[in-house]
């Protein structure tokens, strides 16, 4: 895609370059991630019984084999992919298993770790399937509308099932409970990316002018309103504030990235706020969450003892800087949902602020790597998909971590990879697989080779760092064709037709 005013020139004969693959680094990092998880597992056992738990070797072997299989799939099918994504996923998943195993010690009657391990295996299996079978992410663009229909069906399904703890988000089939809303997140990201990539320009143009507002044309406004209605509908029908927030946030981020129009994104946010506010007042389940957030200790003052959020805050506070050590905290006092929504409280109490910050930074790194792939890609669909998937992770982490630490009202949502919840683990492995595929094409595609070659040629004249920046700038310029005509703050370089 070219915006007017760019000069086109023929490709210079590309010199042969060996693009960095970094698979060795990935392998080493995976080994570290597995060892860290096994270490945590042993630490729990030593703290509780004074001896290394018998399952340590089996656990390490299991996690190691899964990670290695995933690594082999990447090595074979996505050789240029970012080396950080997979190790981070392995480490978070391993750490999550350790935390769940640790909490299982408090509830011998209700073990969640084995189930979680099965789901993780399934997740890694699907990860491998995606990496192996999906050779090019652009294939997904064909399924834009299939995705959204499937997502809607998945979202609506739980309405016909009984609600669990006030939220209708579960399917119970043959003893397994599945949260279809989790899978819908990925499908919606695909749909948003596809839809916005196709209609970017139409969306950027303004339509009718109403009073002070420049509205987009109705044809493109329709889906936006529909999405807004969907998120509010989810909220009302399923009492799932978290998912609703996530959808809306995801949509706003992608809309902004696709069009750069802030004006009516603000309108959208205003609408969302109104909707949320209205529902918050009308819906007791949501309303009580807001009340708890404002007054976490109200139940204590009323003599009913601490509620879950208060217990969660107590757990975080007990952790302090360095934590109590794995297996030595009392986060079990949180009670219900301690292994799922409140898993972070266990991490906060037993690993302290240091460990919690490390976990946050791991997520930050994961998101940053997703964004980096988005920046390096050329096709708008790929860029939007990478940004969308990374934003899903970022928003999920923020919504649930902010909820359990009292930053925002608490909404039920699984901490990616960490929390108990099969659907969530599987979905997040798929997200990582897609990000790997995207980063593989970003770092290993023909443009990347070209950029690399040019950078190499320029190192004679410039310092390495500057050359890199230039290559990046080039890469950005390649992506051109946005509504603004040119990206601000970039040096106007000659552009190469894709």
């Amino acid at each position, binding site marked *: 895609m070219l915006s007017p005013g760019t000069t086109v020139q023929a490709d210079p004969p590309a010199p042969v370059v060996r693009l960095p693959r970094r698979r060795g680094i990935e392998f080493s990092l995976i080994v570290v991630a597995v060892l860290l998880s096994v270490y945590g597992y042993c630490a729990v056992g030593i703290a509780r019984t004074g001896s290394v738990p018998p399952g340590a070797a089996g656990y390490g072997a299991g996690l190691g084999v899964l990670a290695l299989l995933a690594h082999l799939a990447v090595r074979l099918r996505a050789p240029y992919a970012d080396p950080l994504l997979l190790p981070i996923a392995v480490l978070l998943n391993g750490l999550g298993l350790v935390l769940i195993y640790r909490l299982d010690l408090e509830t011998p009657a209700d073990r969640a770790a084995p189930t979680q391990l099965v789901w993780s295996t399934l997740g890694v299996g699907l990860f491998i399937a995606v990496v192996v079978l999906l050779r090019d992410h652009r294939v997904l663009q064909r399924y834009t509308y299939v995705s959204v229909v499937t997502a809607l069906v998945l979202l609506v399904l739980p309405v016909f099932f009984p609600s669990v703890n006030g939220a209708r988000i579960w399917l119970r089939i043959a003893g397994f409970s599945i949260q279809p809303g989790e899978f819908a997140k990925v499908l919606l990201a695909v749909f948003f990316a596809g839809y916005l990539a196709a209609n970017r320009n139409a969306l950027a143009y303004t339509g009718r002018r109403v009073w002070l507002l420049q509205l987009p044309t109705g044809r493109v406004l329709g889906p936006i309103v529909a999405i807004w209605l969907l998120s509010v509908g989810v909220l009302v029908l399923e009492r799932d504030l978290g998912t609703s927030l996530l959808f809306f946030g995801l949509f706003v981020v992608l809309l902004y*990235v696709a069009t750069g129009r802030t004006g009516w994104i603000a309108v959208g946010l205003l609408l969302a706020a109104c909707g949320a506010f209205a529902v918050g007042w009308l819906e007791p389940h949501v309303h009580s969450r807001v009340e708890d957030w404002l007054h976490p200790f109200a139940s204590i003052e009323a003599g009913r003892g601490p509620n879950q959020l208060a217990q969660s805050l107590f757990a975080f*506070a007990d952790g302090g800087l360095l934590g109590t050590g794995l297996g030595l905290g009392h986060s079990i006092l949180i009670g219900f949902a301690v292994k799922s929504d409140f898993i972070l409280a266990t991490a906060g109490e037993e690993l302290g602020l240091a460990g919690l910050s490390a976990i*946050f930074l791991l997520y930050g790194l994961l998101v940053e790597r997703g964004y980096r792939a988005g920046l390096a890609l050329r096709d708008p669909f790929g860029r939007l998909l990478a940004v969308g998937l990374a934003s899903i992770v970022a928003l999920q982490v923020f919504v649930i971590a902010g909820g359990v*630490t009292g930053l925002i009202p608490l909404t039920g949502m699984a901490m990616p990879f960490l929390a108990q919840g099969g659907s969530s683990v599987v979905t997040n492995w798929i997200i990582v697989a897609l990000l790997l595929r995207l980063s593989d094409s970003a770092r290993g595609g023909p443009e990347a080779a070209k950029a690399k070659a040019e950078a190499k040629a320029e190192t004679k004249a410039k310092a390495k760092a500057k050359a890199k920046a230039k290559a990046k700038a080039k890469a950005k310029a390649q992506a051109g064709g946005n509504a603004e005509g040119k990206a601000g703050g970039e040096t106007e370089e000659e552009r190469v037709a894709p």
Partner: protein
Amino acid sequence: MTRYIRHAAAFCALLLLALLVNATRIQLVQARSYDENPANRRHTIARYGQPRGDILVGGKPVTGSKDSGEQFRYERTYKNGPLYAPVTGFASQVYGTNLLEDTEDDLLAGTDPLLSPLPLWNDLTRARNPGGDVVTTLDPAAQQAAYAGLGARRGAVAALEPSTGRILALVSTPSYDPEELSGTDSAVARAWMRLNEAADKPMLNRAVRQTYPPGSTFKVVTAAAALDSGVVEDVDEPTKSPDPYRLPGSSVRLVNEVEGCADASLRYAFAWSCNTVFAKLGVAVGAAAMRAKAAEFGFNDRQLRIPFGVSPSTFDTRVDEAQLALSSIGQYNTRATPLQMAMVAGAVANNGSVRTPHLVERTTTDDGDTVSATGQHTLRQAMNPATAVRLRELMTDVVERGTGTHAAIPGATVGGKSGTAQHGIHNSGTPYAWFIAWAKADDSMEPAVAVAVVVEDAEDERGDISGGGDAAPIARAVMEAVLAP
């Protein structure tokens, strides 16, 4: 588009930053206030997560801990619970602690910073020291003798070593087993209800937390005041007291329960407990001097800790002469704990000086290194040593040929004073029988024990005889236990 992706990435970075800042706020800045929230059970869990230190009597622990396997893991057990309850108190997961379990709680629970090898070491490592031990001054034989002596009657015994203030026995009956309050199950709540609602108040520590009208035992204080102030110079001189004695400024006539009190000498009046003589002496000494003398013995002292608090014994400070006359014979508003009356007997035995009574000999770490030792302090000089000598003589007479013959011990010098205290509306209640005494073995230089006994439901006929009859044998048993090699 690149620019907008960067903006979106910056937005995500902002979210991450918000999470990190908020986590710091919760985990560091506000952590203390969350930790100290009474609804936060972590302190309690940690506290019961290790065996509690022990309270030692005669070198042997009278407490223990058993692992319940529940959230509040270790529960307190007591050997001989009812016997030592007035000393140990209870340590309950539900109802907290009292008495020694309460005052020494930091040490027993292992949180006392003195137990740490290095200052602040535990704050860093989050480790807890094993609970330390409390070594008491009690004499197990004396405690047992007092408890057995009181038997099924309501009453209390306090015994101490006059020269040091070490408390040798502290008994209150009826008692209860503090172990019933250990743990968290419904039986604990039921026991708590039952013990609190029981008519005979088994959880009341009568030896230090209940004041009684001391009756005639207070005449020791009055006699000391009379001798110290020079109102009486010779104990064998007639005191010019009428019998009956009309209280000054009123028409009430005070009578005696024994003959020969008219114009009796202090020696006779003391031996036979003449109310008229001592009432008149109190008036002669004067309100200010009587009040000062009582205070020197320890009355009206709100500060005494042994280490747990003791109810203050009282001598009313604003009285007219009639009230002063009654106050001087241990009636009206004069009230005393058994421990206070043991201190009175101890002062006589210890040449007039009152030693601070204390229960804790020393505290140690769990492997026996001393953490702190209780020093001995002279509380105050309650009377001239010469007065103490004469009072010892008078008290010895009581045991040899007065109302306290039941307290005599072969091979020892025993001095005592009996008392009966009326109480209730128009003195309708069963009178309290009192006996205070001290004993010195013939082969030792110093009196080894001072004791005070009160029996609430004395069954005997009215009169000082019941003090000598009901309470004196218990005092003798306790003193014998202490004197026995």
